[in-house]
């Protein structure tokens, strides 16, 4: 009979408060006494006064009780801690397994979170970041947007739209290159041409000089701190001049250093060493100002800053009119779009990005993987705890008999899992601290983690650990604390109970699935990367030194240097060309109309010399190479590759005449196809022209493998002789090529590591689980042994269940793995196949590991003297 109705004795509200004030279940004594006294008072002094008394008392006591519960709570907490520690020590090997897998899971998550955070905060250091946009072009029918614009766009936007308060162009340097100050001479590449608004829009704090006026005059240059250090040491650079030479002429001009700014942070989508005023281009380009400020072609990127109150969509809607007005465009033939500055980095790579961007997909991928690892660790914990529960059943039963109640027990077991999570947190903080530098350089980011700077992160990690502990602990704690003493005493709880085994089976299967999928992915990615690396690119890439020169004298008269070089025994070939096999990027169109064919297609092209094909080992499959005997080769002859030849569809295109760039050329030979782009792309048609006097900038030197450093020293010597005053900088061709696949390389490595981790954790879980089962079945094994059973048969018996899980896992994992990998391999034009053998391999590895684990544990159990195990009864 409960009393909580308003017209009866205790007002409902008070009743509720009183109940809350006193947590322990003391309904009878506590609430009963209150009710009794209340009734006495009611009859004595009347309902109203009694009610007042009650309310007064209840409210007065609230603060005191709250304080009491706090203190009491801390006591209880200390108690739980003590008990939890004791329990953890008792089952130390299980605890170690759990701590270990939690630590790994937490560390992974932490590292990945740090990485994600660095990715997400790209470009956020600019004060105006929220209002800066990049202007992109979109064309009907094209799915991807283009990031380059015409030169006059920025200023015109600023003129026409009051909400565009600042605008700048950013143009990557193509015009100048050798920077000189006193005796320091260096090739510099990270030069941007920008407008004067650049330093006002973007936040690059000035260390000296005035950023507002730094880029107004032509031939002004702004240095970064690193560059100031490099050229001027400790001298103040502002006011001094740097002499910079142009690429294609000998002209050197003086540039005045107007300011020095801080180095560009690593989390920027563009980075530079030098900024030069845009109007300098008017003097550098042959056509002067008109050739720059024209709407005729696209080159720079345009960035604008909007007024804080302006809306970007609003502005975008005004663009069609703008386009019609200035470019006389047909409506809907071209659109301008605005891209937020902060979206650029994760927006994927458009052609000719300033720097390599990332893709939000990568972030998703890593998040998913780390989540999977966390899940595996959590599943481990659940599995182990539930399996161990019968062992602890006695303990639970005793406690219950002694008056412990379910919430208490629940809290106690939860605190165990939370404590394990906390211990893991401490270890993982240490681990992350150790791994962070290595990880930072691996992902090329600045990932320092200063505890004082990032209090938010500590909370995040703490929250992460607590969440893991919480979720892993809920089910086992609920399960264990709900044991009823009678069940335990009657030994009616069996490890092999239907519900338990099937739950264990499900958890195990999920772990297997995750492991198999990750293994398959990792193996496939590895296979693809090896495939790409070993793919014959069609030209020799080993031991080829490449040197770029801007010395026009040298490039126009390379023969003497060539002869000198070839006199060295270890130098096997020297060639000059406009492009290396990896840098071919110019295009033009070829027309052919003869014999009924009317072709007009685009090809890439470059200029080479007589020795190019032999240095690179590219074979001639039809016709001939350029040769000195044919004196008109450099005016009319053309080499084409197999893909180009295929376009003509003739038995042999040698001898045909084609039209290119306003002139007629004769095809004299067909050479083997080779990959000059990365293997993501198909080979395009390509033509090669001979040039003996124009000046070809790349030297390709094939060297032998003996005494490489000696050979290089020799080459450097020669360079000094023939091209003094120009820096000698070389790269090996194969390292250039490797650079291309850096992203894939890193991906492969990360996936491999993560897979290994996932499998390790899953294995540990398996070990723990199996050893527990084996131990529990010690009795059974002992008895069977006495009865003469064969150890091997027992192993088979116990592993039958696990096999079922494994097979089920394989069935589910296969389509998942296939689907994921198929998607990834689609990116490559040249790819391996997804081998069935990989699936089988993964399953086999998983099975073997599982089998060994089980076998080992069972052997251990079987080896114990049956007398020991049965004696316990």
């Amino acid at each position, binding site marked *: *009979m*409960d*009393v909580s109705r308003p017209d*009866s*004795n*205790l007002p409902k509200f008070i009743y509720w408060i*009183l109940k809350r*004030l*006193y947590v*322990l279940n*003391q*309904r*009878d*004594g*506590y*609430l*009963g*006494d*209150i*009710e*009794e*006294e209340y*009734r006495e008072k009611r009859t004595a002094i009347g309902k109203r006064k009694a009610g007042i008394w009650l309310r007064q*008392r*209840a409210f*007065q*006591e609230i603060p*005191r*009780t709250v304080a*009491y519960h706090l203190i009491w709570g801390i006591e209880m907490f200390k108690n739980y801690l003590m008990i939890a520690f004791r329990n953890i020590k008792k089952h130390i090997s299980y605890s170690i397994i759990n701590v270990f897998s939690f630590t790994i899971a937490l560390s992974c998550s932490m590292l990945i979170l740090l990485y994600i955070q660095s990715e997400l905060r790209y470009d956020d250091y600019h004060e105006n970041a929220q209002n800066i946009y990049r202007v992109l072009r979109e064309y009907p029918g094209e799915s991807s947007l283009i990031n380059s614009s015409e030169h006059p766009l920025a200023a015109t936007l600023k003129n026409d739209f009051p909400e565009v308060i600042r605008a700048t162009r950013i143009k990557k340097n193509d015009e100048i290159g050798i920077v000189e100050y006193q005796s320091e001479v260096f090739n510099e590449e990270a030069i941007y041409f920008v407008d004067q608004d650049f330093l006002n829009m973007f936040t690059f704090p000035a260390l000296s000089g005035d950023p507002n006026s730094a880029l107004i005059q032509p031939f002004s240059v702004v240095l970064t701190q690193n560059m100031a250090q490099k050229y001027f040491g400790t001298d103040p650079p502002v006011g001094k001049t740097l002499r910079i030479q142009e690429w294609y002429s000998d002209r050197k001009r003086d540039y005045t250093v107007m300011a020095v700014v801080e180095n560009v942070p690593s989390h920027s989508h563009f980075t530079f060493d030098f900024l030069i005023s845009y109007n300098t281009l008017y003097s550098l380009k042959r056509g002067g100002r008109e050739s720059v400020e024209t709407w005729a072609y696209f080159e720079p990127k345009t960035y604008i800053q909007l007024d804080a109150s302006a809306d970007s969509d609003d502005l975008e809607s005004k663009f069609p009119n703008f386009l019609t007005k200035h470019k006389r465009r047909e409506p809907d033939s071209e659109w301008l779009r605005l891209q937020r500055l902060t979206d650029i980095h994760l927006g994927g790579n458009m052609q000719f990005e300033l720097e390599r961007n990332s893709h939000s997909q990568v972030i998703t991928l890593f998040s998913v993987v780390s989540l999977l690892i966390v899940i595996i660790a959590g599943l481990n914990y659940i599995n182990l705890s539930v399996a161990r529960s019968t062992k602890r059943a006695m303990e639970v039963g005793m406690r219950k008999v002694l008056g412990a109640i379910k919430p208490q027990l629940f809290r106690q077991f939860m605190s165990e899992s939370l404590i394990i999570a906390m211990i893991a947190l401490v270890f993982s903080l240490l681990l992350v601290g150790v791994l962070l530098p290595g990880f930072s350089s691996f992902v090329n980011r600045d990932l320092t983690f200063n505890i004082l700077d990032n209090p938010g992160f500590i909370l995040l990690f703490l929250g992460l650990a607590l969440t893991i502990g919480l979720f892993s602990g809920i089910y086992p704690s609920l399960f264990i604390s709900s044991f009823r003493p009678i069940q335990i005493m009657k030994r009616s709880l069996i490890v092999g109970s239907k519900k338990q085994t099937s739950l264990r089976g499900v958890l195990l299967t999920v772990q297997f699935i995750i492991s198999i999928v990750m293994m398959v992915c990792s193996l496939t990615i590895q296979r693809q990367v090896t495939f790409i690396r070993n793919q014959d690119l069609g030209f020799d890439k080993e031991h080829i030194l490449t040197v770029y020169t801007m010395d026009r004298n040298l490039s126009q008269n390379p023969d003497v240097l060539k002869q000198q070089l070839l006199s060295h025994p270890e130098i096997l070939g020297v060639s000059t060309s406009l492009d290396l096999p990896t840098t071919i990027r110019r295009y033009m169109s070829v027309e052919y109309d003869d014999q009924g064919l009317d072709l007009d297609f685009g090809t890439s092209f470059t200029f080479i010399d007589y020795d190019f094909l032999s240095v690179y080992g590219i074979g001639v499959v039809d016709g001939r190479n350029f040769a000195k005997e044919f004196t008109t080769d450099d005016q009319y002859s053309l080499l084409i590759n197999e893909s180009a030849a295929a376009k003509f569809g003739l038995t042999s295109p040698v001898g045909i005449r084609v039209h290119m760039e306003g002139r007629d050329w004769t095809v004299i030979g067909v050479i083997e196809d080779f990959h000059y782009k990365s293997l993501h792309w198909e080979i395009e048609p390509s033509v090669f022209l001979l040039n003996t006097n124009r000046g070809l900038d790349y030297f390709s030197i094939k060297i032998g493998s003996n005494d490489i450093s000696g050979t290089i020293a020799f080459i450097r010597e020669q360079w000094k002789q023939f091209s003094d005053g120009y820096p000698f900088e070389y790269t090996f061709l194969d390292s250039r090529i490797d650079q291309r696949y850096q992203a894939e390389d890193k991906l492969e490595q990360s996936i491999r590591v993560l897979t290994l981790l996932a499998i390790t954790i899953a294995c540990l879980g398996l070990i723990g689980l199996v050893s527990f089962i084996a131990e529990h079945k010690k009795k059974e094994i002992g008895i069977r042994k006495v009865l003469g059973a064969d150890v091997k048969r027992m192993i088979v018996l116990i592993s039958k269940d696990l096999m079922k899980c494994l097979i089920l896992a394989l069935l589910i994992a296969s389509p998942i793995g296939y689907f994921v990998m198929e998607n990834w391999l689609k990116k490559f034009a040249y790819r391996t196949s997804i081998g069935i053998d990989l699936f089988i391999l993964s399953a086999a590895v998983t099975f073997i590991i599982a089998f060994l684990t089980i076998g080992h544990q069972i052997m251990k159990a079987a080896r114990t003297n049956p007398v020991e195990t049965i004696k316990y009864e």
Partner: protein
Amino acid sequence: MKELTKLEEVVMIAIVRLKDTAYGVNIKKEVHILTGKEYFYNTLYTTFDQLIRKGFITKHFGEAESKRGGKRKVYFQMTRDGREALEEAFDRQSRVWDGITKQSLKKGWT
């Protein structure tokens, strides 16, 4: 033997005095008589719990009554440890107050 707080001591004395009528409402009234202070049930029950945990008292249920809304009474009684604790407290008190009269508390007493 752990020391008793003042309130614990008073509560235990009240239980001794009340003999077998020592339950919540009565104890509250007795404590009120003894100390002049009125404590509310949550404080008292907190003290009961403390004492139970220290092993000085035990509780048992009595009859359910309608005037308590159908809830049972909870009676408390001393344990041997509890009696010992009171004895000790009594001894300690005697030693401290030995020979002191109200007179001697006045100033100037030699």
